[in-house]
């Protein structure tokens, strides 16, 4: 696959093995600013590994990943962490909210990690929670809210640092269809309004429908799909 010009993130010929299992075997990927790309594929196809590699969480065995023209492989761990803190946002299948923090503290956490004062961070967090319609849960702990609400809090957390790129790994995987759709609507709307690109890993076609483009991963190889409307 040829990387289109003006891409925010480009990956080429990625290979990654876990023991004898090839999770990625020459996968490629690219995404433009503000674009929503769905990474699809069956269980065990390597899509989560692709996401982890693209986000700099996992280092591929070979291949190249360039973010904004910079090669990820040349960055050390601290630099990659900084990138994840400032430029990327994350949403996981089960939200992965810190159970002991309140929802607003969870949303404010990435800002606080960047050194923003608590007050300022929570003010900004509350703004995002309002947009995601969960501001009434600010003082509640994750254990006290429903799965859908928790996932919306997680989406707010992924957006709070105004990232340029959001990685969403099965963000609706643990939700019913109604809640899942609402989360997807809010996520894509919020991302588009903030001009943030979204890498959306899913195996559900109705979730992938929220994307601008789809990439299918199978046996560690990726294939760009034409959107069929």
């Amino acid at each position, binding site marked *: 696959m040829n990387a289109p010009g003006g891409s925010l993130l480009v990956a080429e010929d990625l290979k990654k093995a876990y023991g004898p299992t090839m999770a990625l075997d020459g996968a490629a990927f690219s995404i433009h600013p503000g674009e929503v790309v769905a990474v699809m594929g069956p269980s*065990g196809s390597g899509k*989560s590994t692709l996401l982890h590699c693209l986000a700099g*969480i996992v280092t591929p065995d070979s291949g190249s990943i360039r973010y904004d023209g910079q090669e990820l492989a040349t960055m050390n761990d601290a630099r990659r962490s900084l990138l994840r*803190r400032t430029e990327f946002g994350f949403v*996981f299948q089960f939200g992965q909210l810190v159970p*002991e923090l309140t929802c607003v503290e969870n949303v404010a956490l990435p800002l606080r990690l960047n050194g923003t004062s*608590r007050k300022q961070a929570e003010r900004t967090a509350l703004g995002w929670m309002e947009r995601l319609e969960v501001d009434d849960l600010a003082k509640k702990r994750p254990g*006290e809210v429903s799965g859908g609400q928790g996932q919306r809090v997680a989406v707010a957390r992924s957006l709070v640092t105004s990232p340029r790129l959001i990685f969403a790994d099965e963000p609706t995987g643990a939700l019913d269809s109604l809640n899942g759709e609402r989360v997807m609507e809010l996520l894509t709307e919020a991302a588009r309004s903030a001009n943030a690109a979204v890498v959306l890993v899913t195996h559900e076609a109705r979730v992938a429908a929220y994307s601008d483009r789809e990439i299918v991963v199978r046996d560690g190889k990726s294939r760009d799909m034409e959107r069929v409307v």
Partner: protein
Amino acid sequence: MNVRQWSRDLGLGVRFAFTGGREGWIRAVLTAVGVGLGVAVLLLTTAIPNALAVRHEREEARLDYSFSAEVPRKADDTLLIVETDTTFRDKDVRGRLVEPEGPDAPRPPGVDVYPAQGEMVVSPALKRLLASGGSALLRERLPYRIVGTIGESGLIGSQELAYYAGGSGLAAYLDGDGATRLTAFGNPKPTHEATDPVLVLLILVMIVVLLMPVAVFIAAAVRFGGERRDRRLAALRLIGSDGRMTRRVAAGEAMAGALLGLVAGTGFFLIGRQVAGSVEVLGMSAWPSYLNPSPLLAALVALAVPAAAVLVTLFALRGVVIEPLGVVRTARPARRRLWWRLLLPVGGLAMLYPMIGQGRTNGDFNQYLVTGGVLLLLVGVTALLPWLVETVVARLGSGGVAWQLAVRRLQLSSGTAARMVNGIAVAVAGAIALQMLFAGVDGDYTESTGQDLRRAQLQVTVPEGAPLDATAEKFADTKGVTKVTALWEGYLGDASWESENGPTRTSELTVGDCAALREVAKLPSCKDGDMFVLDGSDYDGDTPVLNKPGTKLYLEEPGGSRDESVWTIPAGVREVPSAKDPRNLKRGGFALTTGALPKSLAASVRGEVYLSVDQSVPDADDHVRNTAFHVDPMASLMTWSATKQDRKYASIRSGLLIGSACVLLLIGASLLVSQLEQLRDRRKLLSSLVAFGTRRRTLGLSVLWQTAIPIALGLLLAMAVGLTLGAILLRMTDTAIRVDWPSVLAMTGFGAAVVVLVTLLSLPPLIRLMRPDGLRTE
């Protein structure tokens, strides 16, 4: 309560414990190891009374004192024995020279055949020591051929260094000069020593203090892996099990772990028993056969541990709601109430109060009240700590991210945090109280010897007959010796010591060169041949009466005074003031320079040689011991120390040190396992936090704060309870209350060090768990 239903649910839990796949086994093994360690310590504790009793019996059985005032006549069944104990480096060696006088001579326990002259039988530990390199200095003192080994029945510990060597001509040393004639070994009338009430109090408190943390540890161990287990049990709710049933199944699983722990504990104990036979701690060793737990106490442990597992699990699950959809939420716990928690320590104080002052005068204090009181006070720590942690962390403001994560975590589950430090807090509280008690009564069990270490560090007693000057010279030439004060001593009487009534007035005789005599008297001038009479002794009333020129004085000597051992006081004996000698005593009697001592008396005075030694010279003391041996194998050497401690008191103190170290290690292990379990449980969360850029340092710090805050509170509470208990114990023994701050801080610091160590040890797994692997779901 339906017994059938209970046993069915518990049984189901036991089955689940072993059929939960790898997860289940890991949990069962963790619990088994944890409980096993606790059980092993408990079994060891129940074995200690037996070990001490057997040790005492063996020591009594080999006693070689003559319990009669009269020396028995030589016969076929008599034995001559001389004590030749020595020390090698810092290890004591029990030594005896033996000479059977007939075929029926009694044999000491553990010795089958008497060694002939020039031979010896040795303990296994001494055999190993002599066979190892670096024992040449000891070998020089034991120039005998090894012909056998002393059996277990003749030794009080597996690492005891002991020997019996064959001697000859020992009869010459009878009459108070080292040799004893025996017809049997052992004390014919073993008496039970009345134990000092303060020592009993110390032992009681020590047992409670050491065992309480073990109990707390076991309670924590049965909850190892509990949070994950609770989540898994949610599946049972889905198929119709109600909350109570689920809790009973969980208790069954914990019971299975505890039962496995009993097996593991027995294994650990048996291994530890063997290991105990090959180690020596603080100069004490034991034979594995000593360590037999009391059957009753062992049965109690076997019943109490599984029962505790069930109760602790049921209690711990009170605040946990297990829902059918696999979601377990800790029910927002009701605010902890203080009143009933305060009842425990207040009850303890109430039990101890009537005992104040009882421990000293007549020892009439009620052991049950003391034990119960101490127990309640210490249990009070475990009850108060969760309340204290909850109350304090609820008020903690937020700081940095690491602090916020830690504080919030503690606010959400302060009980878990308190459980983790309960053991340490109880151990520290008890140790502080005991240290206070020890420091308070130390003076009663530690007496000053009066020995002035600035003037000498070693004292050698040389039997009569050694040449005076040559002996002093040999010591002066010994490696490491910097100063020799050789004084020869004897007793003079106004009549023969063998006469019917003996002498009526006696006086001391001290002989030495001028430099040596200056150590015992203030001499205005001195030259060889001078004679002095010492004035100013506290106890010498006879010398001024005897001191008349021409008076005949008889020298006491083994075998009785002879005509040659008579000294007639010449004219020209000068009176000089006595001065404190190296033993801190002002002696009286006559002091003669070596040249003034009639030759006929020279062979009848005993040598007391005081030596200063340069301790930087390797094995200086052993070089002196060898010189003493070469001067006379019967010479005895004493290493001076400024104070002397009561033996029983010293062993209790050593026991506390060993016990505290074991308990703290145990608690450290428990802390580590709990910490790792919590980290493992949060693996996914930690990975996701790292994924969105959280610094590892931030997470590491948050783990440290999570441990440090409860431990700081726990130690604070431990200090308060420990000081209170210590003060009460001191009042019980009628001792003035004095806080021994250095030991309080040392104990607290020790507890804190365990936590820091545990945190450091948990960092590598924490870093490992923060790897992105935790995010993988497939």
